[in-house]
């Protein structure tokens, strides 16, 4: 498998008033070219920080450690970050809030042309217009949308424009950070379906960040469940949905209402710990129904099936 993303013991922290707070802890992951990979977990687990690190969009006060390679090029090595030349042509991020990422004073066409020219150099008018139309057709928007200002579009259409903008420089890796959280249930699905179709048609590597495991089913080949800055379970999507092993993943799945099933939803007591207040050992321990003495040590990875990795001492007892 050719790797699009490889991280090895990648840690990310933020320099804040209280000092340096690590948000992502020694993350090692490998995502193949053309694969769709999903990061799920509750708010505050470090999902977005992982996404921003891959997309090269960390703020200046962020600190990194370890290695991150994108399409074979080192993007992060130790405390150094080298994203120039990678952002755009190699990796892009689709923002969470499309409305905030569009310029209200430019038409959709002008904004797309702006990105095209920045990445592809000077284009003739005709060529630019042709490429704008191509991008709009990719995201299934009618050609007239090029003449329109963002405020004239609905929420779902704005998200499609944001996707077109992200695809303008022809990237290889796309990080979609909760691209559907501001949308209603049907639009969520239709945007997820569009991303899946684009991933397959353009051979993109897709990192899909969400807290909605059911949405992951439509979009992703593999899923990593993130808790408190660490991956706790990683497997093919079906294996997570039908054969989850980690107690956190199991509870997360049972907390989602399933239709025609009136069984009580799982209560995961408490909330995820805020960054910087992590306990030693397994970080899910205080909320875990099957935690025991041994969980005070850092869990080691166990391979429970093909490509199904879990970080839990007690996975057999759940």
């Amino acid at each position, binding site marked *: 498998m050719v790797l699009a993303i490889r991280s090895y013991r990648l840690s990310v922290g933020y320099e804040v008033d209280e000092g340096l707070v690590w948000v992502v802890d020694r993350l090692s992951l490998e995502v193949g070219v053309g694969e769709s990979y999903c990061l799920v977990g*509750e708010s505050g687990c470090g999902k977005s920080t992982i996404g921003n690190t891959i997309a090269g969009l960390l703020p200046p006060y962020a600190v990194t450690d370890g290695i991150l390679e994108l399409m074979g090029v080192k993007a992060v090595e130790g405390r150094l970050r080298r994203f120039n030349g990678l952002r755009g042509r190699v990796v892009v991020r689709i923002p969470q809030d499309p409305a905030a990422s569009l310029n209200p004073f430019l038409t959709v066409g002008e904004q797309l042309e702006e990105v095209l020219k920045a990445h592809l150099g000077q284009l003739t008018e005709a060529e630019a217009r042709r490429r704008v139309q191509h991008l709009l057709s990719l995201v299934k928007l009618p050609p007239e949308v090029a003449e329109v200002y963002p405020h004239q579009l609905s929420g779902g259409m704005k998200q499609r424009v944001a996707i077109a903008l992200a695809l303008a420089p022809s990237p290889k890796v796309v990080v979609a950070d909760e691209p559907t959280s501001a949308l*209603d*249930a*049907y639009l969520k699905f239709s945007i997820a379906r569009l991303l899946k179709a684009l991933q397959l048609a353009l051979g993109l590597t897709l990192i899909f960040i969400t807290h909605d495991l059911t949405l992951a089913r439509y979009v992703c080949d593999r899923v990593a469940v993130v808790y408190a800055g660490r991956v706790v379970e990683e497997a093919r999507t079906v294996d997570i949905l039908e054969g989850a092993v980690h107690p956190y993943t199991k*509870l997360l799945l049972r*907390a989602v209402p399933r*239709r*025609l099933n009136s069984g009580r*939803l799982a209560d*995961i007591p408490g909330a995820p710990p805020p960054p910087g207040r992590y306990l030693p050992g397994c970080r899910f321990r205080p909320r875990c129904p099957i935690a025991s003495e041994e969980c005070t040590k850092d869990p080691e990875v166990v391979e429970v099936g093909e490509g199904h990795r879990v970080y839990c001492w007690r996975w057999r007892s759940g």
Partner: protein
Amino acid sequence: MSPLLSVEDLYVAFRTPKGGLGLGYRVVWALRGVSLGVEEGESLGVVGGSGSGKSTLLKAVIGLVKPLKGSIIYQGLDILKLGWSQRKRILREIGYVPQEPSQSMDPKMSVGDIVVEPLLALGVPRRSQEHLLGSVLELVDLPREIGGRSIRELSGGMQQRVAIARALITKPKLLLLDEPTSSLDVSTSAQILNLLKDLRETLGLSYIVVSHDIDSVSYVADRVAVMALGMVVEVGPTDRVLAEPLHPYTRVLVDPEKVEEEATLDPEVACPVYRWCPWREDRCATERPRPVEVGRRHLVMCWNYL
């Protein structure tokens, strides 16, 4: 059995600026002839996409927006025709939990003051206020001490509990909940849905729960109504509607993966799904479908079932 609350043929419109550089306003219909009822002890779910009018329906019931036409009948009395004092008496029996708890509560007030505020309008003496505060906080599983804290110090799930406590303090019979879990994380949302289920059992409440997510609504609702562009397109028992959705738009919400076309809604035609409906006939564009009874308490607004 006569319903506890019913709305009949309700119309609500908003005036919004034309936009661009054009002056003047255009009228947008939020509700276009909605008729729905909820019985005592029953829970009705209302689902639909953004702009379907589901939040407006709740706002119309508690008087936050004024309907142009139609009636809202609570225990046989038309709320819209009552004087202010009578209306106030009825409204204490209807609790309202608005969308986005963090946006609907004053960050400068203490949690205790926020929760007892509805009692001030009713002139409840200070001592009983304290007593009621204690009992509603217990109902929503919040510690007593939280009364002195500010809403900003609380997590999203706790804020939602405070909003529910405030709605419960007047001892209502009916609770209106607007997207009670949309701004919450998976695990917190499960806690709130479980709480709503428990409250209904202990207090014998009726609910109208509005949400865009049919799965979370199905967890707390006996019946579910599907809305599209201000109209109810299907209403029926939750298990029936989910197992076998009849209206084309209900199918979109229940099984989005089975729908090939983009399910856009069009306000310019009589039936909002006309543009892509597989069963469309000529009259669907011009004549609004009448409700057809397809089962016990199960209505579909579609000419195909006539």
